[in-house]
């Protein structure tokens, strides 16, 4: 009857499929599957990851409960020699910072040391603090020293930590790290940050958001900056940072998202991005065009204006100056252009920029405009503009 067929189909869910499903399941649920049957008893052990997301710790008692939970898994792991590759922690705190630092962080630190010994490959330590001022420097927890001991890491993501020094060692050493995401990280000095990057020789993907420093830059910091080598880096995403990133080190990128401020950067800071095909940059007309001169092979350009911190919004109000020569990428490579927050500050400037691109981009396939205002006017201005590419489609949303 139908029953037999059904059973055959269901039992053909092989171990590898079940492994995959379990490894995507939060830890607590995966552990529970051990009671299902003898086959399942052993299944979760060989593929369990430490995966805690959507954890909200609001007060001391919830922190202590979570710690208890962690310590119980620790014993399971420790006594059953479970290997794990991934250690994902994503916690949102609204507890008192003192409770976080005295109760929660030590418990996490112990786990990270254990993870280092277990040769963890993927580590996400994402903490978040709600109802607080993230820039209140004293409340960021110190980065657990165990993180620097995880030499086998391929992916490291950190959020909301303070790095004052590198304990036990003067340098950072992640010989296999390919992806590094740093968000809301406070480094004591510029050098510490540069040394962190320098310790990742094969880094391919870098994201830096809201990284800031306790102390001002020194000459020594500049020296460390100058010797930084990020030649393996393919993707970089640098936003919301009030310091000058050594952009020259990013010359090998294929994708770059960066927030530039004219006060911080000049065209001399840009290398030639020989391989860059996709650029996402905040729209400050002069800098944008200067940047395009340095991206000879750019195919996809995205411009935006709205940023997380309000202090970036001041563009120089000025009249549009026609550039002397069109950037090479415009005539030979650019296929897609997207302009967001169009007319947010200056309708005229933005229209001049869009028209300039349309006039010069011979291979342009699409020009997409996102705007909260004056859509009709924008449409009229742009559709009447002469285009270098006959097949270009313009859309205004």
């Amino acid at each position, binding site marked *: 009857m139908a029953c037999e067929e059904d059973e055959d189909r269901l039992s053909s869910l092989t171990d590898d499929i079940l492994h995959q499903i379990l490894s*995507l399941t939060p830890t607590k649920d995966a552990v529970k599957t*051990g009671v299902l049957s003898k086959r399942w008893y052993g299944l979760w052990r060989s593929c369990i990851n430490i995966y805690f997301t959507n954890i909200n710790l609001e007060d001391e008692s919830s922190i202590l409960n979570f710690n208890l939970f962690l310590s119980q898994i620790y014993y399971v792991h420790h006594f059953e020699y479970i290997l794990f590759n991934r250690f994902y922690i994503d916690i949102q705190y609204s507890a008192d910072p003192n409770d976080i630092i005295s109760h929660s962080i030590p418990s996490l630190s112990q786990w990270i040391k254990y993870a280092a010994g277990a040769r963890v490959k993927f580590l996400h330590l994402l903490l978040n603090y709600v109802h607080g001022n993230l820039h209140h420097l004293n409340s960021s927890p110190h980065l657990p020293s165990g993180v620097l001991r995880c030499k086998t890491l391929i992916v490291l993501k950190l959020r909301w930590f303070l790095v004052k020094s590198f304990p036990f060692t003067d340098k950072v050493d992640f010989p296999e790290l390919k992806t590094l995401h740093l968000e809301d990280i406070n480094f004591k000095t510029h050098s510490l940050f540069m040394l962190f990057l320098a310790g990742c020789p094969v880094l391919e993907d870098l994201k830096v958001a809201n990284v800031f420093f306790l102390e001002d830059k020194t000459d020594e910091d500049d020296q460390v900056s100058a010797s930084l080598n990020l030649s393996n880096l393919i993707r970089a995403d640098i936003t919301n940072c009030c310091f000058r990133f050594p952009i020259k080190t990013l010359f090998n990128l294929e994708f770059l998202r960066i927030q530039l401020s004219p006060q911080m950067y000049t065209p001399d800071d840009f290398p030639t991005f020989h391989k860059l095909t996709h650029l996402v940059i905040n729209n400050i007309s002069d800098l944008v065009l200067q940047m395009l001169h340095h991206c000879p092979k750019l195919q996809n350009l995205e411009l935006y204006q709205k940023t997380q911190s309000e202090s970036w919004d001041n563009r120089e109000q000025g009249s549009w100056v026609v550039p002397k020569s069109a950037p090479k990428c415009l005539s030979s490579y650019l296929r897609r252009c997207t302009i967001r927050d169009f007319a947010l500050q200056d309708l005229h400037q933005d229209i001049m920029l869009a028209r300039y691109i349309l006039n010069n981009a011979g291979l342009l396939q699409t020009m997409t405009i996102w705007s909260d205002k004056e859509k009709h006017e924008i449409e009229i201005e742009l559709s009447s503009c002469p285009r270098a590419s006959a097949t270009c489609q313009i859309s205004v949303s």
Partner: protein
Amino acid sequence: MASSSSNLISLKTSDGTVFKVERALAKTMKTVQAIIEEADANIYMIPIHNVFSHHMDMIIDYYKLSVAGKSKEFSVEKLDNDELKDFLLAVHYLNMEDLFEVLTQAVADRLEKKSVGYVRKYFGIENDFTPEEYAAIRKKNDWAFKGDDIEPEEDEEKQEE
């Protein structure tokens, strides 16, 4: 002459329907790709066992969305649990990495926070523990069960034993 044989590959599903798909889509199916590579010259029709036409429809939907950069819009919500499992098996057979991960994540999401009884029914797992064994394991990892609501299915099971 041979190379002008189109960029379309013919795939025949278990229920006899023939789908002509782009070579690029066929490439995402490692099983199919292996067959193509092993065949000498043109291969007219590749039979794909365990894959039905309604599976192929969804696979093509997913492919179109991912080419447009919208793979996140792909949803299997409308599938019931058995249909999802079936689809997962088909995609597993075809060895399609990305879609496999999407579907296993969908299954994992559906099982999240569900009771043991639910999961048991879902996978059709027979409990081969003795009542004593079951109780011992349950107790050992008691902390993992804490915080869940009382699970009627599980209580029923215990009573059966």
